[in-house]
Every structure is written in C-alpha cells, then in structure tokens.
C-alpha cells in the first residue's frame, strides 16, 4: 500500500524556533533517515518535543527550513504521532481506532476488520467495546499506538510515551514499538530514560539547550560519548 513518495529523510537546516524571547531550538541541523529506531534524548527543556512536533508538521520553524524526502510542504499523510498524554475520544476503544482509520482515508467497507487487526496488534481486543477514557494509562497509550498505526505511517513519532507509566505498562508499549520498528516503520522517539536507549535505540540524537550535541549509534553513545554533557548524562549526572 506504500506510495512511491517518501517523507524520509527529514532534513533540518539551521532551524530556529523562538517562543517570545525564549529560544527553543537554536539553528539546529539534523538528518533523520530510515532505519533502526532513533531515540531523541536529553534533559527537560532541551527541545525534544519541539523537534518531534516539527517533524510532524505540528509546529513551524521561526527561521531555517525542514524538508521531508526533499519536499518542503509534505502533508502528514505518511507520519503519525503518539503524545505523552494522548487524548482519548469520548467513545469506545474500537471507535477510537476506527476514527483514526477513517481520517486516514481507509475504505469504509474494511474498517471493522482492520480495527480488529490493530487492536489485536496492541493487545486490546478484549477491551474493544470499553469506553476509551476508562482505560488505564498503559492501555490508553497502547490504544494511542493502534490509532497512530491506523494511519499506515512510514514514520512514527513518539513523545516520551512511557514517561508517566509504570514498568509493566512501559514494557507493553516498548514491545509494540519494537514490533513496529521491525515491520519497517521508522521510529523517532523522545525519551530521557537511558534504559530505554539500551532497549530500543539504533541511534541516538542527544540534545542540550535547543541543539544537537551528538548523533551516533546507540552503542557508541553509551560506551564512549564524545561530549562532556553526554558523558555526564550517561553517568547519570544531572545535565541542565
């Protein structure tokens, strides 16, 4: 079902984002290509969320430019986003997935079958008829994943999806993310959890104060970080 055009690589060219007097991203240059999961890590306020929102097209740069597969005006049809606190629509679990499918232009006739498939994939089949807002935090996050996958994306952006989850729920979400990556969908995920980097990352984008300090394979980052901030971050020191 993949079209010939692709949103990858996403190229940031000296992207500056300012909100009032605060500089959130400071002339950031970065290329995100297809392949294994990229984890965007760094302290709070480093600009991770803003970077992901720019990738999705939810925010626009104050200066500089972003291209998706070489195009500057790519509609987000091939991209999907999972928020730290996803909004559950006031309807059932399966209606939430069907909603995602409908708005991704999925044919109405195959809606029910595809919804069941996606719920199966995130392990929510038994809860299909429950009101979505009645789910636990971990279940809601898995539903958000199903709804994002409903868009049949080539790129899945996740903004600290496990930040407010307990270890068991985190594992559930990470398993789905890993499966998704193995199915060929590019993952770009913000995190401030080094354990998550070990478990999921192919490569790491390390951000501090609105800029990229390092972009390296995860193994190198964990073993020999090349900047002092990254070394401090890996040691577990507080980086601000």
């Amino acid at each position, binding site marked *: 079902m993949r079209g010939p055009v692709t949103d990858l690589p996403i190229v940031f060219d000296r992207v500056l984002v300012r909100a009032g007097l605060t500089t959130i991203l400071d002339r950031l240059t970065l290329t995100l290509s297809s392949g294994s999961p990229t984890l965007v890590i760094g302290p709070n306020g480093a600009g991770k969320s803003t970077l992901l929102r720019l990738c999705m097209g*939810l925010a626009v740069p104050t200066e500089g430019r972003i291209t998706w597969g070489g195009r500057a005006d790519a509609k987000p049809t091939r991209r999907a986003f999972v*928020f730290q606190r996803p*909004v559950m629509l006031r309807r059932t679990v399966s209606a939430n997935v069907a909603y*995602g499918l409908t708005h991704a232009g999925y044919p109405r006739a195959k809606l029910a079958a595809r919804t069941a498939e996606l719920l199966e994939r995130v392990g929510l089949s038994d809860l299909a008829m429950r009101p979505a807002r009645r789910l636990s935090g971990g279940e809601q996050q898995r539903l958000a994943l199903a709804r994002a996958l409903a868009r049949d994306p080539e790129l899945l952006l996740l903004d600290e999806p496990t930040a407010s989850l307990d270890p068991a729920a985190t594992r559930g979400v990470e398993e789905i993310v890993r499966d998704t990556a193995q199915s060929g969908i590019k993952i770009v995920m913000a995190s401030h959890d080094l354990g998550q980097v070990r478990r999921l990352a192919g490569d790491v984008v390390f951000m501090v104060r609105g800029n990229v300090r390092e972009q390296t394979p995860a193994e190198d980052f964990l073993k020999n970080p090349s900047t002092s901030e990254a070394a401090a971050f890996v040691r577990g020191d507080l980086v601000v």
Partner: protein
Amino acid sequence: MGRKIMLDGLNAWQLIMSGDATLFAIVKLSLAVSLSAVVLAAVIGLPLGASLALMRFPGRSAIVVLVNAFMGLPPVVVGLAVYLLLSRSGPLGNLGILFTPTAMIVAQAILIVPIIAALTRQTIEDLWIEYRDELSAMDVGPLGRITTLLWDARFSLLTALLAGFGRAAAEVGAVMIVGGNMEGFTRTMTTAIALETSKGNLPLALGLGMILVVIVLAINAAAWGARVWSERQVG
C-alpha cells in the same frame, strides 16, 4: 390577605388535580412550542458556536461579542421583530403564520440561538485546547473537527440546551406578540399566567405557575440524570 393567597393556592392545587382539560391543553402547547424551539435553535446554534470557536477570520471578535450580547435580547423586542417580518405587509407576510404556534417557535428559537451558540463556542474553544494537537496529528479537516468536538462535548452541551429551554419556557413577551394568546390555539403557560393575573383569576395563574416550575425542574432533573448515567458509560 395571607388567607386569600392560601385559598388561591388550594384552588390551584384542586385545578391541577382535577385534570382540567383547558389547563392541560395550555401546558401541552407550551411544551411543544418551547421544545421545538430548542431543537430548531440547536440545529443552528451548535454548528454556529463550534464554527466561531474554531475559525479565525476578520471580524470574528465582533461576532463573538454580538452573540454574547444577544443572550440578553429582550423577548418583546424579538417578538416585535418577528411580528414585523410575519405581518401581512411584512417581507414574510405571505407565509401566513403570524398568530400560529409556528410563529411562536420561530420567535423563541431566535431568542435562544445566541444562548446556545455562545455557550457552545466557549465549551468547544476549551475542548479544542485539549484536542488540537491530537486532531491535527490525525489530519482531521475543519468539518471533521467541528463534528468531533461537538460529539465529544455532548455532555457539556446539554447544559447549553437546557439554558435555552429554560429561557424559552420562561419568556412571555415574544409568544404574546407573535402568538396573540388565543385560547385553545396559541395560549401558553406564561401568557395565560399574565392574562389570568390581570383578570384576577389567581388560582389558575398560580396553578399554571406551579406546573411551569415543576416541569422546568423535572426536565432539568431528567437531563442531569441522563448526563450522569451516560458519562458513567462513556467516561
């Protein structure tokens, strides 16, 4: 004096209990007119309020202020305007609906569209703050946004509809002018109360007043119950 009021109250109670046919015809018409007006006003006011909440265009602030201000439209003024529109020589005179329940529905609907639209705009604007990122990420278009937000705000919007119903059921000026308060045809509870009071028939006026208050209470209680029940279902 106090004794007289108690006696009137007693008579009113007897009138209600006896199932007086005239009285119940009046109650029925009042309910039919006000509920129809709410339905008509909702069809216009809900999408209007939601569009105002989501769309940005020049002059939007002026319209928002106008709609808010029109929540306090005096019923007699609305009645007069509708009267002028529908009277024989008016632009819509050939419809021939002046002094019919239809005209009363139209007048009450005009009266409460601003209430429903203004409350809807506020509710949807607040919900949009929560939903904006998620709906944008799902690439939901303008029309989809409006319908999604209206549906997801349905429990809160019930309050807007109830406010509209309360206003419609309570007003007397508009229905008096465009309905004419004709017995058995366009006489509502409020116009009957005004008339009977001026004639000195206090038992009937009081009886109608009590019924009106009880009905408004009952409808609000039922709506509240429905809201609590369905919120429990949907979360």
